[in-house]
């Protein structure tokens, strides 16, 4: 298992004069699950959005399987096909049924026929116990159900890497569990994932490695046990203590 399937090299991003990512380097192996933790504004989401090309970094490079993601060989949409992302607020299309939400990209980007795309979508929906909602509209679903649909939509292109951006943050505590189960299943299936989360139990339970981001830099990284029990960096300690006080650990 080479630790270089997804390779991020000294990634730097400014928003105006504000340094959001400061020479972030990170390597993710195939089948590895990496959790990014850190305070709001530490650059976690920006890092994710750089990985699937939604944001263009100012400096540094991201390689997927050795190929820079800006390379022409990815074509115009190849990157998004290989790197899926799920957002905190699901961002399902409200005017489309669940099935249309999921099959939009396969039909329009991958040029599958409608029958083909729908058959595949129904199969994946069934895996997550959502097939009976195929004809529903997003507003008719609970937050947890919407988030599961969003995961299925991101998986529709059979991505190599799935990015999850605080996918449980907008959910009621009761609903967090059902989304976490889905992600646990994905880990078992061997999907490579980079997960931004505020749910420390989630990170401890699922991650092969946890990275603590502080002010745009990876301040500390390691296996979850070590990082949560014996944080070395003072900022990590401070962050975890605050969470303890807040009862979130």
């Amino acid at each position, binding site marked *: 298992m080479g630790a270089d399937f997804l390779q991020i090299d000294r990634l730097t991003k400014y928003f105006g004069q504000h340094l959001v990512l400061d020479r972030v380097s990170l390597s993710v192996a195939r089948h590895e699950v990496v959790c990014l933790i850190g305070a709001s504004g530490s650059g976690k989401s920006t890092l994710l959005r750089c990985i699937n090309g939604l944001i263009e970094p100012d400096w540094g490079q991201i390689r997927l399987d050795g190929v820079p993601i800006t390379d022409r060989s990815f074509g115009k949409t190849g990157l998004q096909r290989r790197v*899926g992302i799920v957002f905190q607020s699901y*961002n399902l299309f409200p005017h489309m049924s669940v099935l249309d939400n999921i099959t939009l*990209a396969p039909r329009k*980007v991958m040029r599958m026929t409608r029958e083909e795309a729908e058959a595949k979508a129904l199969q994946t929906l069934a895996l997550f116990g959502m097939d009976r909602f195929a004809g529903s509209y997003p507003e008719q679903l609970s937050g947890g159900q919407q988030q599961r649909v969003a995961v299925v939509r991101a998986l529709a292109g059979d991505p190599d890497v799935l990015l999850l951006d605080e996918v449980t943050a907008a959910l009621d505590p009761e609903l967090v569990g059902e989304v976490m189960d889905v992600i646990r299943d994905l880990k078992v299936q061997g999907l490579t994932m980079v997960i931004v989360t505020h749910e420390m139990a989630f990170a401890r339970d699922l991650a092969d490695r946890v990275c603590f981001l502080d002010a745009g830099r990876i301040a500390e990284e390691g296996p979850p046990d070590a990082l949560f029990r014996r944080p070395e960096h003072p900022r990590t300690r401070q962050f975890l203590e605050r969470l303890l006080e807040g009862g979130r650990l």
Partner: protein
Amino acid sequence: MIPNHPDGPPPPPRRRGFDWRVALVPGLISAVSIILVFGLLGWLVATNPNWPRIQAQFFNLDHMLAAAPRVGIGFLINMQVWLIAAVAIGSWALLLAVVRSLRGPWFAPFRVMVVLYIDIFRGLPVLLLVILFGFGIPALRIPGLPNSGLFWGGVAMVLSYSAYVCEIYRSGIDAVHEGQWAAANALGLSDWQVMVHAILPQAIRNVLPSLMNIVVALQKDVALLSVIGVRDAVREAQIYTATTFNYSSLVVAALLFLLATIPMARLADWITRRDRTRRLQVAA
């Protein structure tokens, strides 16, 4: 007093029977006051010493009946122009709004063109454009170009109205949440596909009530074409007036316009209301 039920919650409250007094009294008061106010106004008008002259000038039934067929045929032109222009404005303005909202750097010159277009056509009176196009372009006698004032007047209306409608569409596009763009881009859709499949359906739904208002306004503004000699309802009524010196024909045209615009306005209200309940349901 809170009823004491040992098992389970107390029953739902009994429905009150139909109460004639509660239902009837406010209705009766409204009816009586309406009759009083309008009756008073009608009496004031009818007892005015000038009323017979006003009636003969504007509401002469003989003249109205005599003018009705020609004004009616003119009104059919109004309706035709209205329908064709509404469709043309709807599509042309949509194209302008999409071009203005596309974000790629290659679209920059087209974005600038749309901005200029809107500045120019929104800043000019429709009447001026109608005269300029309707008289000016046929006068050029360029071979191959249509020569009818009706056509070019209609083009002027479409160009002018599109500037407004483009801005309405654009406000609808801007109101679509940023996350929808991000989600659509993250799926690998092209700029054009993002617009067509993800953004526009939501944007158009957002602005449907405003669009309906424009359609109502357009319905009566079509009468502007009468100034360049198009024989629409207003023009026909004027022709009748010119020979008889009686204005009842214009009242016929006015009634026809009301007959068309009032149902449209109600339809617009209904769409607005339905749209609001839909939004409230989503929010709840």
